């Protein structure tokens, strides 16, 4: 079975198929997807807990549930957690698990790199939260806002370790994200099933492709900004030090050149999920597929032309403000097209109100509101009245919860039977949807009012008499309802997982390749590689229109399938940069062993690369029907 060739690697490739170490060493995209999903969901709960404490503090004027500094740490870590540790990894879970299934492949292009992305995400996520152990009082939890504007991030104004932890943590997280992006692009371009031309790919795959491109172009910008910030803090460089000729506005440009595409990194795959769920549960083809593809690509490109709309108040002057106002407005066009195409997808269909579908419909309704407030923000002169108020807070909670998170819940209910072989309970599902839907709107819609009443964001307290009391209280109540919905969802998962795994291969009458294989899929995914002739091939295979062939299951497999072998090198390689980052942190702590720790990090990295290169092919040959 296993190829036991002698290798130059210093740790042999593990062979365990089950148990703890099999998960640590796994390179199976499905297992990595599950790891991303579980970890991302746990951090989603952490971020939610942080939000809950903030809403308690703001329920009434002048409350002292937490200190000012703790509150500032909470909103910084809430955003950082939700964006980088919650929603992005949850989206990555879908990408990892589904991408090979949707394109008819047996894994991603680089399985070990895929594992590396997960482990460095996990280490970065722990790293960035490490300051909580010391508490917020000394500034050791990041409390600089999620975009960490210079020069508040200087040692002079943020003397604790929080900013260093934040900077280094984000650098680690960015590394994993970049590697994933390359991995997905190569997978999509090279590993599609025979016959699946680009324009026959499921739309979700398109959104992953565009998102990955966005990551590759956007993350270097923030990486530069963060490294400059790290140098400013650890080595007294003066990139953002005004007195030494640095520029604080420069940081903002670098950050938002990343930051705006990042918003699309969070929403495009979510749109992809909804674009897969709607056709299945309405039993109708996605309306205007090619326009949807083009809109996705266009939103991706245009995402790089609008960054300064986050900076309309910074003093760029009317010419620059006007230009960025117009480019921002332009993005509304492809976004609007998508919304109308989603609605048209359901037109003439048979809409089944499954939980997955309810969340998808909730997505359209809620995301539209977020999109419209986004359109309002484009008007630079009136933006100066909305900027940094709760109106903006309303906007991004509508696109991130009403958008990304609703899409994630939709996708979870849709693909849960595929992943775990069990259908989530629909009754509990409907309860969780309605609680989450009403809780979310009760919690976030009042932010529109508060913003228009002049409440700035990021304030830990407010005075009575400004008219903000009622809607703050309503919002806090909404959080409790939203939390009840999330708990109902968790209960649903727990109850469902205790049932036998008896989900059929195709419970929803699906349209794409993942529904052609058993639930859960065997370790090799496809016993025989499918040949695709049409978009929605599985659907037209089941419901042919005319004589056109839709899908073939290829030639019968001859001989066993080779599966990539597990490896411990990915986790070791992820450990290296993490140790080096800790060393940089130790420089700021003036610890004598800081430099040796950095060196140790590099040594671990080099060792891991050595082991990676020379640990041998490994892997197993497996007969279809055997194993898993």
């Amino acid at each position, binding site marked *: 079975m296993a190829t036991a060739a002698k290798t130059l690697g210093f740790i042999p490739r593990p062979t365990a198929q089950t148990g703890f170490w099999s998960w640590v060493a796994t390179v199976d995209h499905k297992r990595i997807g599950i790891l991303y999903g579980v970890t991302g969901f746990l951090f989603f709960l952490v971020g939610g807990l942080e939000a809950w404490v903030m809403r308690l503090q703001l329920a009434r004027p002048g409350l002292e549930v937490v200190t000012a500094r703790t509150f500032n740490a909470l909103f910084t870590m809430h955003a950082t957690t939700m964006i980088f540790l919650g929603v992005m990894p949850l989206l990555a879970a879908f990408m990892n698990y589904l991408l090979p299934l949707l394109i008819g492949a047996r894994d991603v292009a680089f399985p070990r790199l895929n594992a590396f992305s997960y482990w460095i995400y996990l280490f970065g996520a722990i790293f960035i939260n490490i300051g909580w152990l010391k508490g917020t009082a000394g500034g050791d939890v990041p409390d600089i806002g999620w975009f960490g504007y210079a020069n508040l991030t200087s040692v002079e104004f943020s003397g604790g370790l929080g900013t260093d932890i934040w900077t280094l943590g984000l650098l680690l997280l960015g590394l994993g994200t970049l590697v994933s992006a390359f991995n997905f692009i190569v997978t999509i371009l090279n590993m599609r099933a025979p016959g699946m031309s680009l324009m026959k790919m499921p739309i979700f795959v398109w959104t992953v492709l565009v998102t990955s491109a966005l990551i590759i172009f956007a993350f270097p910008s923030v990486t530069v900004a963060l490294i400059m910030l790290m140098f400013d803090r650890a080595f007294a460089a003066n990139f953002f030090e005004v007195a030494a000729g640095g520029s604080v*506005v420069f940081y903002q440009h670098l950050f938002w050149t990343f930051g705006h595409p990042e918003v699309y990194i969070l929403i495009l795959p979510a749109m992809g999920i909804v674009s897969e769920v709607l056709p299945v549960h309405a039993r109708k083809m996605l309306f*205007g597929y090619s*326009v949807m593809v083009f809109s996705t690509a266009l939103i991706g490109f245009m995402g790089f032309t609008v960054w300064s709309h986050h900076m309309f108040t910074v003093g760029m002057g009317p010419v620059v403000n006007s230009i960025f106002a117009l480019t921002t407005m332009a993005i509304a066009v492809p976004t609007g097209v998508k919304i109308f195409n989603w609605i048209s997808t359901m037109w003439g269909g048979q809409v089944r109100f499954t939980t997955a579908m309810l969340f998808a419909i909730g997505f359209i309704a809620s995301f539209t509101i977020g999109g419209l407030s986004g359109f309002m923000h484009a008007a630079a002169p009136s933006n100066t009245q909305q*900027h940094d108020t709760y109106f903006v807070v309303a906007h991004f909670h509508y696109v991130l919860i009403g958008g990304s998170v609703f899409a994630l819940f939709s996708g979870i209910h849709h693909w849960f039977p595929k992943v775990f072989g069990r259908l989530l309970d629909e009754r509990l599902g409907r309860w969780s949807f309605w609680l989450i839907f009403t809780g979310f709107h009760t919690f976030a819609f009042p932010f529109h009012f508060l913003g228009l009443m002049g409440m700035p964001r990021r304030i830990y307290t407010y005075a009575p008499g400004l008219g903000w009391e009622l809607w703050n209280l309503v919002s806090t109540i909404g959080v409790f309802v939203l939390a009840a919905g999330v708990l109902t969802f968790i209960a649903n998962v727990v109850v469902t997982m205790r049932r036998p795994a008896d989900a059929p291969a195709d419970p929803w009458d699906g349209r794409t390749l993942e529904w052609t294989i058993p639930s859960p899929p065997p370790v090799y995914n496809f016993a025989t590689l499918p040949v695709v002739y049409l978009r929605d091939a599985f659907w037209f295979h089941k419901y042919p229109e005319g004589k056109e062939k839709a899908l073939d299951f290829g030639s019968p497999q001859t001989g066993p399938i080779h599966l990539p072998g597990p490896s411990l090198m990915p986790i070791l390689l992820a450990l290296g940069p993490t140790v080096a980052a800790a060393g940089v942190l130790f420089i700021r702590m003036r610890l004598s062993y800081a430099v040796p720790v950095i060196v140790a990090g590099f040594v671990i990295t080099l060792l891991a690369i050595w082991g990676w290169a020379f640990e041998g092919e490994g892997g197993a040959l497996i007969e279809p029907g055997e194993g898993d």
Partner: protein
Amino acid sequence: MGMWTRQRGARRGLALLLAGGLLAGCSTLPQTPLDPKGPVAQTQTGLLLYTLYIAVGIGIFVTAALLYVVFRFRARPGQTGVPLQIRGNHLLEIVWTVIPILILVSVAFPTVEAAFSTATPPEGALTVRAVGYRWWFAFEYPELGIVTANELRIPAGQPVRLELTSNDVIHSFWVPKLAGKTDMVPGRVNIAWIQADEPDVYLGQCAEFCGDSHANMRFLVKALPQAEFDEWVRQRQAMAEGPRDLSPAAARGRELFESTAGNCFACHAVDGTKAQGAVGPNLTDVGQRSTLAAGILENDYENLKAWVKDPAAFKPGTTMPSHARLSEQDLDAIVQYLQSLK
């Protein structure tokens, strides 16, 4: 400003109904940008409401369409067969590409117009240099030789040219009823302008996160009738010679203020005295101010005393030290001195 700000009253009424008027019995919103009281805010709010109506209109249309489609085409029991698989419709897709473009063009023109019309202060405007500090505002009138803090007095009906900068981190100058935000950026000077059409007190607040007490960085703009403003300028300029006619207790307070006993002079300035510190707010006219600690406390005897004694209790992170070491009498003396500065 043009047509986009006309019919403000009606639009504002509707907007308040949509946005804030829902809340029962809360007709006064002292910090809302939807109640603009000067030309800059009126232009901005006009545009804001125009985009708000479009957004609400589209939102209602899309929601209605969504609900209609979802219920009209819901799966029914006994349904057989599969729906017709429609791939798309070019005409429809062109329609819902072109219509949004037309709507956006209708927004683009007033947007650019307003961006330019609100950018440059009118000629002959009074200049105020506003400097952000953690966590208070300094206001200097270079043409009048006046320096004050946290309360900006301006003549009603007159444009005021603002030179905005910061002494430490980025802050943002925002008086919602008079103008949208302009950031106060260290190392550069941003120009903005405000004008209050009517004499009144307008609330302002820092709108860029600036650390611990960002929430406690507020200020007031007091728009006075021109004659009153001129009178204030005269009176305020006269105060440059230092405080006069101090009561014995206040005189004792001044001694403490200006000696290492109180050590106030190390950070604060009082014009015409030995105290010329430049770290904290200029206190020459602190007795005139209606609020303390950058708009977070009412300026009365008890609050002032409590503030001096333990500022961090009100403003976490403040660099102003505790004065709990001073005796009650000394604190009282200092407070009496401060209250006499008007």
